């Protein structure tokens, strides 16, 4: 009988331990297989079917994907023929994950790994990655992609069932090193002398459920996995891109305004404050604002260890609208302990919102200390740019990368916390191998 293409052929033999029938899917590729009746681990390549390990030590675990399940994976039919549970111990805590052996007679083996709902599609690679251990955090380069070291540990095989293309026994221990570049993970395992490399690709559980026609929904992933793609990274990148583009526009807008602002001086005159005068307030000569714009009323006062205050009204002659503002100037100086000091300023300005064009005058009411006559100069400048709105805009723009980036950063922090380089991890790699 000839099997249809894609349908695995099977061969059987009797278990050397219990005599039960054992079926092989991967035929000559299988290096070890478990007896479905008694659970003993057998070597089918030995003419006498040697028992690698008896069933006594084995616990019972039901794989999430049952052995014998067939599905279409990467466009090819594959069958789940083996399952093993392995674990590492880090800082006294045991972390276990499951591995499934997929087999296609024409394509060979692939593997699926599952750690708390995080699935990886794994294949072994023949090309040896280039490992660089010069920095504190080693890297590995494979196929022009650079991976960062994530974890070094010693993995132990805790449970096996089905067929395996290598000779497996319970309690097998190998040294593992994982390098990540999400969604990929480059892993090596073996001894210091001989290592096997594999490449994993983070795969949503839904994809596997659909491919193998599994009932229900896959378990929800717990936490953040080593090579899990950061779902917030796109948003963070968009936030950074938007910020830099908008920051450039803001600078251009600011410079344009600084260059093109009229800064037209429409009035300037000097006065002297005379304390004790019967009427301190006065009005200035009329002046014209040729266009709408912001107004800056600037004052320079010759104050020395005294102060001078001003109530100022910019009054439109035509409409009678007055824009009231005020300013106090004070300037003190002296010497203390051999060091001179000053406080305050002899200059100041009052900034008014956009004022319509028209004929205006100032009504000024100065006030100062008794007995000190003080000279001062008043200037009115139209269309004066202000830096403050642009500064506020810059602060607002800074929120873009912050708001879009903090979740991405939090995600990466959680990822790194699980690595040898995270804050919650021990610095001593030996701990991982306990």
């Amino acid at each position, binding site marked *: 009988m000839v099997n249809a293409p894609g349908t695995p052929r099977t061969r059987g033999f009797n278990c050397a331990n219990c005599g039960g029938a054992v079926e092989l899917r991967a035929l000559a590729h299988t290096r070890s297989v478990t007896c479905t009746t008694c659970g003993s681990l057998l070597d089918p390549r030995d003419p006498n079917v040697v028992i690698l390990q008896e069933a006594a030590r084995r616990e019972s675990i039901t794989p999430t994907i049952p052995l014998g399940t067939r599905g279409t994976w990467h466009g090819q039919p594959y069958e789940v023929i083996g399952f093993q549970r392995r674990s590492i111990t880090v800082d006294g805590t045991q972390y276990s994950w499951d591995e499934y052996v997929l087999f296609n007679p024409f394509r060979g083996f692939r593997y699926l790994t599952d750690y708390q709902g995080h699935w990886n599609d794994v294949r072994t690679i023949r090309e040896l990655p280039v490992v660089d251990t010069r920095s504190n955090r080693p890297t590995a380069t494979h196929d022009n992609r650079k991976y960062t070291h994530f974890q070094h540990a010693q993995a132990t095989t805790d449970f096996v069932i089905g067929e395996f293309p290598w000779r497996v026994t319970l309690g097998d221990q190998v040294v593992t090193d994982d390098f990540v570049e999400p969604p990929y993970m480059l892993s090596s395992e073996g001894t210091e002398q001989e290592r096997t490399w594999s490449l994993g690709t983070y795969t949503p559980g839904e994809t596997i459920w659909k491919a193998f026609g599994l009932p229900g929904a896959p378990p929800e992933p717990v936490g953040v996995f080593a090579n899990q793609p950061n779902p917030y990274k796109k948003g963070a990148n968009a936030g950074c891109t*938007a910020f830099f583009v908008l920051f450039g526009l803001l600078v251009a807008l600011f410079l344009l305004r600084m260059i093109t602002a009229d800064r037209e001086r429409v009035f300037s005159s000097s006065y002297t404050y005379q304390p004790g005068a019967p009427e301190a307030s006065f009005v200035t000569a009329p002046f014209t604002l040729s266009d709408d714009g912001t107004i800056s009323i600037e004052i320079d006062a010759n104050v020395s260890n005294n102060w001078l205050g001003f109530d100022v009204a910019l009054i439109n002659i035509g*409409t009678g609208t007055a824009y009231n503002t005020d300013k106090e100037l004070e300037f003190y100086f002296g010497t203390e302990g051999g060091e001179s000091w000053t406080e305050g300023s002899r200059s100041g300005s009052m900034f008014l919102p956009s004022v319509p064009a028209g004929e205006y005058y100032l*009504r000024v009411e100065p006030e100062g200390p008794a007995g000190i006559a003080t000279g001062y100069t008043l200037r009115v400048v139209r269309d004066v740019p202000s830096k403050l*709105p642009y500064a506020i*805009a810059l602060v607002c723009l800074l929120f873009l990368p912050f708001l879009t980036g903090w979740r991405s950063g939090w995600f990466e922090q959680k990822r790194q916390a699980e690595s040898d380089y995270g804050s919650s991890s021990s610095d001593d790699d030996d701990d991982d191998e306990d």
Partner: protein
Amino acid sequence: MRLAILMLLGLTVLGTARTADVRGWMGRSNTVRNVPRSVRDNPGAYRALYAGNPRYFGGK
């Protein structure tokens, strides 16, 4: 799409900043309407403090 939304948001901020600058939203004044023309002849009759809060000149 996300970038477009962020750009739109940012451009709104820039537009607001530009408008705030040109219109002088950062300026401060109390506006009084219909100030009589007689103020030019009698400046002391004008009371700017009626338009807002009285101001205290402290000094030292």
